């Protein structure tokens, strides 16, 4: 019996001893190697996600197969030019449709409710004192309205007088004061009508005009795909990352005026890299209130920013709420020397 017992004990101890001998000594070195490999891999991954060097096309998301937003779908960041209508009447027609497929991120289309089939709706523009005459055509299945911010009679406020499906209504009022005024549908539940895409920006220029410069208009908004109260994508002008796919070209030293508005139910912080901007809150003043690179825009708040770039290169513009940035509120300015731009145009 004792020989059997010795054999059995040996049988048990052998694998333990073998395991200890085989795997224990190499362990520390292996751990060190693994840690070094991990650090290198993290560095590599970081390198891949830095804003793109020229032409690399890399940024923090990339749909399968490298699919990007088609440039033809990019929302034109240039607002209509300032000026005066010959008869003093600015006329616009806004057509509301429901469930228009709107690609908020490449491959992800939401059924949006739209003014003129875009989210945000078109930028409207007038000079202070001109008459704004806006025809709303409701091609949807629900009653809608347009509510404008600004100074106007109660009957032009677009809250109580619903425009039924198939109906239309003409909003007419004198454009004032100058500044950036949101417009949006005010049908109840307004939360749904705005969230689904029925919003846009009105720019009202001061009578004396502003110094002519390159102009851009950005509406900041977000999209909650699963209606859980947390947005899944945030966007400059309705499409997450669209100006990262298609950088906006600027000329070095050229002054730029940016009209920006937040229409989502969270504070947003437009932030420019590589420069600072002169801030005109709500665009209702002729003189800037601040020289900064971050301004918290609360809900429905807007601002006019003026800036220029002193150096060429790619600069990110983002919402400084990092969550918003990482879910779509980032894009690039591609700043070029004037000579480069001219050469490019000649080709």
């Amino acid at each position, binding site marked *: *019996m004792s020989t*059997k*017992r010795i054999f*059995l*004990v040996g*049988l*048990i101890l052998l*694998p*333990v001893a073998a*395991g200890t001998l*085989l*795997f224990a000594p*190499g*362990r520390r070195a*292996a751990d060190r190697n*693994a840690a070094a*490999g*991990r*650090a*290198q*891999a*993290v560095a*590599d*991954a*970081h390198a*891949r*996600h830095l804003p793109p060097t020229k032409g690399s096309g*890399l*940024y*923090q*998301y*990339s*749909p*399968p*197969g490298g699919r990007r937003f088609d440039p033809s779908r990019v929302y034109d960041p240039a607002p209509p030019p300032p000026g005066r209508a010959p008869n003093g009447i600015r006329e616009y027609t806004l057509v509301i449709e429901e469930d228009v497929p709107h690609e908020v*991120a*490449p*491959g*992800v*289309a*939401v059924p949006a409710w739209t003014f003129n089939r875009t989210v945000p709706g078109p930028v409207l523009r007038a000079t202070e004192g001109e008459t704004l005459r806006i025809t709303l055509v409701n091609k949807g299945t629900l009653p809608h309205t347009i509510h404008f911010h600004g100074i106007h009679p109660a009957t032009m406020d677009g809250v109580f007088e619903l425009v039924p499906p198939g109906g239309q209504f003409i909003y007419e009022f004198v454009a004032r004061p100058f500044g950036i005024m949101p417009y949006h549908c005010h049908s109840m539940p307004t939360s749904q009508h705005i969230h689904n895409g029925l919003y846009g920006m009105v720019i009202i220029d001061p009578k004396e005009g502003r110094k002519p410069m390159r102009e851009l208009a950005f509406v900041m908004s977000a999209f909650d*795909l*699963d209606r859980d109260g947390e947005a*899944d*994508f945030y966007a400059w002008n309705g499409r*997450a*990352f669209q100006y990262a796919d298609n950088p906006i070209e600027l000329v070095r030293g050229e002054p730029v005026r940016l009209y920006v508005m937040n229409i989502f139910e969270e504070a947003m912080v437009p932030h420019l890299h590589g420069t600072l901007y002169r801030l005109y809150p709500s665009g209702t003043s002729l003189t800037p209130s601040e020289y900064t690179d971050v301004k918290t825009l609360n809900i429905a708040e807007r601002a006019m920013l003026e800036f220029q770039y002193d150096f060429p290169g790619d600069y990110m513009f983002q919402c400084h709420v*990092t*969550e918003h940035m*990482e*879910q*779509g509120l980032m894009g690039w300015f591609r700043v070029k020397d004037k000579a480069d731009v001219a050469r490019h145009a000649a080709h």
Partner: protein
Amino acid sequence: MTDAKLPAKTPRALVLASALLPVLLLAGILYLLFARGTGLYLEAPAPIEKLEFERVVLEPGLIRVHVINTGPETLTLAQAQVGWISRASWEFEVAPSATIPRLGRAVVRIPYPWTPGEPYEIVLITANNLIFSHEIEMAAETPAPDRRMLGAFALLGVYVGVIPVFLGILWLPFLRSLPREWYFFFLSLTAGLLVFLGVDALEDALENAERVPGPFQGVAVILIGLSISLLGLYAITGWLKRRRQAKESSTALLLAYSIAFGIGVHNLGEGLAIGGAYALGEFATSFLLIVGFMVHNLTEGVAVVAPIVRSAFRWQNLIWLGLLAGGPTIAGTLLGAFAYTALWAVLFLAVGAGAVFQVVIEITRYQVRQAGAGSLVSGWSLAGFALGLAVMYVTGLFVTV
């Protein structure tokens, strides 16, 4: 209806036709439904899609997600996000294709620089705007099947499976020295241990069944595994007994082997669950837990040798019994760590449970044959059975995480 009322001799063609008629009619109706539609006009108000996460592998700078489309239709993955405190859209690649057919699988590679110890959420968004997510409670590098990790998991199997069984077997000389009444005490103790083990395995199986993708019906797999092992083992041992013409000592040895087999399959399932839990980042191989498993599984060795305490056998049998009962744990931890799928864990746990229950039946019958039905309710047997349960319960306290 009785046979007598049927015509004495039905033509074979008619019999065949009557067997095929319902099938043919069903085929015809299905054809009409496909061609003409159901007429129900019950379109789902929203697209129904279902995506399940089968395995998440963390490598330095990379999150690899294995998904399966368990919804009724093909789906397309359009965007990926990784949540830390908030979610971030991230680049990703899908192989073989972002368009995944029903029950198709895909691997999503997200080159995200995760850091150890942090919690993350993996979010996949389909082209129909549906959002599927998986939480990583605490990020840790997934063991790669290299020499070191293979060795570590094999060793884990040795610790929790092989060593305890052989240690239990070492009680054999002591058991042999006890008077005859103790023999039935230990047989009943074994039955108690095994009942506990079987219920434990079933519970593990049910737990793992929740992770099995819906269409594969985890609970049904338990039923199938349980039935197969119960009935299969019953048939096999019956056949072996008839062949050997029931010599008393060989019956005892056969019973020992049955127990070893049952425990072995159970240990395979247990190993799969341990390795799989580790792979999913839900299990820390703490010293206390390993000690707990060793104490818990020590009793398995006693169970294996209990029937042969009073019979003669060649000593090599002890080694084979120990290996049969404990060895599968090694295979289990290895498979679980590097190729875990809940489906296999469920199947093996259920087969193990079935085997263990079958062995309990065998032990009971054996005991009745040896000492009469009355022995089952003798004080010795009752005490043994109760102690078996108690031992498992107490040692189980160490392995409950």
